[in-house]
């Protein structure tokens, strides 16, 4: 009786086995490219995804695949690999106390140093994954910040996973991603497209500027300037100490003086770098680039 090949293995192809040494080499390579410190103890997760990519490219060994990733013009396989290895599970209004802090505290402070009708306020969501966070930010501002109409507000959103960015731009979500969205907000900012899927309305989708940015890449980060608030939640936990410190420095440069960084609840800037001021608001602890 014919049997099907395991997932990710082309018919007739021999599955490539990943050794412990391969995993070590891969983790080192992936870290240098992305700043993400893959834990070699997550062998099953890493092996499965590497085997899938090796099979998809019909490589005969891990070494052959690594050479392809390193030297392929255009880097499309490197991007495919990043897409496989990154985690994109999130939902709307996750850790929403920080959005409350944004609209109750941070934006008012930022507005003090801006001229209404002339200046822009720039908010950056990094990594934005499939878009739930930047859209939540946009909705929070429209719903809860009384001065939203006084300024042009730009919401930038970035990720290193292009597949996630594609989903973010489409703005289509299943019900489980909307479980914290009230019916009124759902009716206002989403349209139901079938039994289990909702799409963010076009006006809101068009208000977020999505792009590929690797926060560990100095050349890419040199292009990011003039930001007032950065949401970078649950990313730095995947980085090692050096990458965390480098990313903190990049954020400092990207921010305007007085700008804020909001990290995930388990992350602490004070353990990473001393260049930000901790700001304890009633809703959340955030980190501020000093005004002077």
């Amino acid at each position, binding site marked *: 009786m014919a049997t099907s090949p395991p997932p990710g293995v082309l018919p007739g192809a021999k599955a490539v086995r990943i050794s412990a040494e391969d995993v070590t080499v891969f983790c080192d390579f992936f870290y240098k490219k992305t700043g993400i410190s893959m834990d070699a103890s997550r062998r099953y997760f890493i092996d499965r995804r590497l085997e899938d990519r090796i099979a998809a490219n019909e490589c005969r060994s891990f070494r052959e695949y690594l050479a392809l990733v390193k030297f392929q013009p255009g880097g499309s396989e490197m991007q495919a690999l990043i897409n496989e290895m990154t985690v994109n599970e999130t939902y709307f209004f996750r850790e929403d106390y920080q959005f409350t802090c944004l609209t109750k505290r941070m934006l008012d402070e930022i507005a003090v140093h801006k001229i209404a009708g002339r200046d822009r306020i720039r908010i950056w969501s990094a990594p934005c994954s499939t878009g739930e966070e930047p859209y939540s930010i946009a909705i929070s501002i429209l719903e809860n910040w009384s001065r939203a109409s006084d300024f*042009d507000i730009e919401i930038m959103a970035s990720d290193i996973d292009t597949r996630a960015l594609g989903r973010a731009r489409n703005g289509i979500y299943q019900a489980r991603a909307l479980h914290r969205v009230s019916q009124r907000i759902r009716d206002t900012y989403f349209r139901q497209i079938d039994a289990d899927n909702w799409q963010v309305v076009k006006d809101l989708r068009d208000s977020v500027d999505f792009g590929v*940015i690797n926060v560990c890449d100095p050349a890419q980060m040199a292009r990011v*300037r003039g930001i007032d608030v950065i949401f970078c939640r649950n990313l730095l936990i995947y980085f090692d100490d050096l990458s965390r410190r480098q990313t903190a420095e990049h954020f400092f440069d990207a921010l305007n003086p007085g700008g804020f960084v909001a990290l995930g609840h388990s992350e602490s800037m004070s353990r990473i770098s001393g260049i930000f001021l901790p700001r304890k608001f009633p809703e959340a602890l955030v980190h501020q680039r000093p005004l002077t």
Partner: protein
Amino acid sequence: MGLVKARAAGNGAAFDAAPEDAPRLDHPDAVQRRRAVQALAGDADCVDKLVTLLRVEKESLVRQAAFLLLASLNSREAARGVSVLLSDADAALRNGALETLAAMPDHAGPLLASLGQDEDADVRIFAVLLAAELQDPAAADWLVALAAHETDANVCSNLAEALGGTGRIEAAAALTAIGTRFAGDPFLGFAVETALQRLREA
């Protein structure tokens, strides 16, 4: 007013900021000096310039950028350059140097031998602290070797704490030797006994 898309607005989106010219290292503004430090990445004389700067720079913002760049170089030359700062009179600078060396263990470890022979006891203390940070078998061996002949009480108190953290039973003899050498020093006696206790519990 309200939400606008940066690129559609054609106003020079934040992702497309124009390249900035690097300012001078002696710029009066600390933020600009920090940018000058960052611009040294790739400079052939980067280590020398950074170490020279660190000797005179007082702003933490600039120092941290310099130390971070040195740590990211992760080279023998960078480790040697940073190790010189362990003898500086500025405690914050010495701590920054220690943290930076600990971030490049492959290049910092080989420096322990020479640091342990430094005439300045403070440098030897930082060498002990560095060895404890490295958590490497060779660094633990070096701690045991230094404990065999170190005569400065402050260095030995740091040695006792570091040896206690190695979890190695052969460190017990070195600790006992310190206790014997400073038999009249109650603090060192306490430090040695605490470290021996940690070894027994390891």
